[in-house]
């Protein structure tokens, strides 16, 4: 097969689904623990023993409902959750044999629901109140779903042409096919939620307009694009934003320009891994991930790291870019790098990388920037208090502007690790409950 013809295959889902037999065998292995630690370890609190028990009795609709009830993004989460750090990491069977494959069973049950097209939920009785949700990613969809169940009329405003957020266009299709995320969008729509795509708040409509027409507003805008590296030569032809690259691989025609080329990826989080493996799967000859700290500080999950190594991605530790070099046509030819060393740990326990003084040059045809995502600066202009670009909220998910709530990556702090779909989904639910609680008490006051 021609190399370019085989490329689309590289973007098909890598993990095979469980067969019915495998799923049943695995499900019967679950102990059906009481007050199970796996439930506590799931940020959305899915009743895991219950959904697994339902697989053993072939009650797959019930199983999928148990999952999706607690987690409106349960089908995507089944594929992208770092399960060994969450539910599976907490499974009691870690102590005696091996943990239950909770993620794969969750995928088995939700796949069934996707194939059977059975509606799992019905909207609550309308309560006459309206909520606008800005951003149709995991957090926004989850908030919208929960509010619709509670009886609110919900409108989601999404800047992109399709909803689903990073699940739809940011997480590589060989881990999360777009159709899974779009099914979750359909589930939310089927509850009467209106989803206005191609509508960017702050551009097409203002926040003030939403505040006027709705009883509450939820900001679930996620994070923005990858920020600039801040080094000379960054504007050269051949420097890409990792998320844009992933997005391109999730559209109908795959990019051609990486075939047979050498590239470097800057950063070592989930985004870097995804950018690097995408480049390899698009036909790049050699891809190196450069990180200014070491393997120990890398924020990508172990399974991602292993996956990248299997895709023959190379890793270079303690390297920081200092300049992009190009040819006379403005195309990238090389990256000038500084060698780093780690300083002693500071109070926060983090070891800062400092240049050793040595520099070197890596020849490369393209560069992928994956140094985290920037923040939406427009929020400051409309009076939403932020801290380092992260929206500030109180204990009830309410921002500094009354009636405006926030959830998901938009409120993800500077802590360790990476933002997660499952956490965004849970925050969406919590924001919905907070709105409902507030609206109820206000209604009680006005009627009193």
């Amino acid at each position, binding site marked *: 097969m021609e190399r370019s013809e085989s490329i689309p295959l590289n973007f098909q889902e890598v993990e095979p689904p469980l067969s019915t037999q495998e799923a049943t*065998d695995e499900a*019967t292995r679950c102990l*059906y*623990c*009481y*007050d*199970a630690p796996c439930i506590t370890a799931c940020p959305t609190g899915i009743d895991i023993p219950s959904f697994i028990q339902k697989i053993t009795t072939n009650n797959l609709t019930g199983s999928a409902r148990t999952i999706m009830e607690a987690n409106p993004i349960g089908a995507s989460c089944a594929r992208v959750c770092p399960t060994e750090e969450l539910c599976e990491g907490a499974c009691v*069977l870690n*102590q*005696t044999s091996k943990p239950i494959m909770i993620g794969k069973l969750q995928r088995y049950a939700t796949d069934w629901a996707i194939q059977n097209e059975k509606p799992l939920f019905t909207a609550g009785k309308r309560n006459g109140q309206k909520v606008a949700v800005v951003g149709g990613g995991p957090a926004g969809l989850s908030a919208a779903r929960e509010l619709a169940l509670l009886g609110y009329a919900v409108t989601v405003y999404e800047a992109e042409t399709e909803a689903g957020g990073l699940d739809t266009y940011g997480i590589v299709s060989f881990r999360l096919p777009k159709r899974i995320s779009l099914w979750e969008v359909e589930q939310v729509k089927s509850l009467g939620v209106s989803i206005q795509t191609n509508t960017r708040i702050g551009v097409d409509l203002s926040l003030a307009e939403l505040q006027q027409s709705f009883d509450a507003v939820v900001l679930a805008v996620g994070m923005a694009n990858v920020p600039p590296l801040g080094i000379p030569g960054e504007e050269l032809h051949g420097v890409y934003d990792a998320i844009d690259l992933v997005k391109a691989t999730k559209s109908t025609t795959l990019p051609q320009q990486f075939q047979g080329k050498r590239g470097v990826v800057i950063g070592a989080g989930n985004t870097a891994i995804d950018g690097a493996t995408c480049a390899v799967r698009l036909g790049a000859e050699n891809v190196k991930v450069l990180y200014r700290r070491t393997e120990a500080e890398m924020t990508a999950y172990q399974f991602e790291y292993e996956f990248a190594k299997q895709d023959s991605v190379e890793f270079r530790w303690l390297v920081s870019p200092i300049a992009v070099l190009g040819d006379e046509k403005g195309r990238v030819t090389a990256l000038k790098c500084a060698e780093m060393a780690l300083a002693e740990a500071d109070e926060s326990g983090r070891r800062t990388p400092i240049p050793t003084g040595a520099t070197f040059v890596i020849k490369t045809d393209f560069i992928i920037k994956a140094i985290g995502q920037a923040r939406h600066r427009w929020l400051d202009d409309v009076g939403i208090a932020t801290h380092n670009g992260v929206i500030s909220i109180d204990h009830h998910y309410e921002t500094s502007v009354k009636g405006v709530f926030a959830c998901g990556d938009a409120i993800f702090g500077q802590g360790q690790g990476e933002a997660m779909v499952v956490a965004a989904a849970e925050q969406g639910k919590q924001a919905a409950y907070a709105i409902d609680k507030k609206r109820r008490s206000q209604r009680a006051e006005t009627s009193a």
Partner: protein
Amino acid sequence: MADLISNLAGITSPNPFWLASAPPTNSGYQVQRAFEAGWGGAVWKTLGEPIMNSTSRFAALHFNGKRVAGFNNIELISDRPLDVNLREIADTKKRFPNHAIVASLMVEPKQEKWHEIVKRVEAVGVDGLELNFGCPHGMAERGMGSASGQVPALVEQQTAWVKEVATTPVIVKLTPNITDITATAEAAAQGGADAISLINTINSLAGVDIDTWQTIPNVDGLGTHGGYCGPAVKPIALHMLGDCARHPNVDIPISGIGGIATWQDAVQFLLMGASNVQVCTAAMHHGFRIVEDLLDGLSAYLEEKGLASVQDLVGQSVHRYSEWGNLNLNHQVVARINQDVCINCNKCHISCEDTAHQCIGRYTDENGAPYLKVDEDECVGCNLCSIVCPVEGAIAMVPKPNGLPPMSWNERQAAIAND
């Protein structure tokens, strides 16, 4: 190596593992394959007037992902001509002179019918006879099988008829479909039986298909009760075995049958009074090759226990099997959890909380780690928690001395009467 040679009322075999009268012993070809695989004996598929079998015959109970926890059939006795069976028995006996071949028989409850068939099978050299008073379906409607086996007088009478002409040991195979199996066991002994074997299959309906609403199995849209066997019936068989073994009027050897699938099962039957064991379902589930581990496991067990012969096991637990009225009511055990192996699944907690005596509490230690503890003052020692616990050794039921002298219900009643 320990001696595995077994002896049931004078019928010897190289080891105590026999195939029960059933599909595995339907033909010479099969029985010879079984002997080659290592089985010590075989009770030939029941002979009698040839019958017709239904197609669609078997069904099974699968439990929690494990297949064949129980097995059900509506098969009758041999559907092959008697003279073919007899020829194959003679041929098999010639090839395997040291193995036990027992002919299972079932005829109408008439003296001359029994005399005739006994003479014919003994003529081809069988080592013994097994009278099938157990089949719960088909033959019973014709006055045979369990229809005879449920009436002690008929059991005694027909056994006596057989004994009038038999020259080899006579085993009477008992049906469990009766309130007190010792009644028919005693009748068999009275009739002169040299041994009894038990149990045959238990009346059952394997299931109902929830899509078609048909019975399982069904024959062209109709179902009927069949005989139940396999691992699920083992406790029932053991109880009936124990009841017969300890009965003073049943002092003949017993061949143990019902749910035996492993060497451990076999050891339990031997301890509870069986001189040998018969197996059907386990062989049907996996083939004759299972005998390899039965033999291996039993040998290793005997060696580990320092026993020279399998005969040394027979009946060792019978005296420990008694009436409820003799149990020491002042004896107390309580559950104790081993924190080192407990995996905190909380199954013991919820089962005790919801369905026993609410005495397993959930706590958090100084490091914030969860742990469970039994309130031993509240524990009634029912064993439930240790039964549901998925981790070997996590819950032990330990004796709790209470300083009281042993006292059974019977002793208590006697003491009250003497007051």
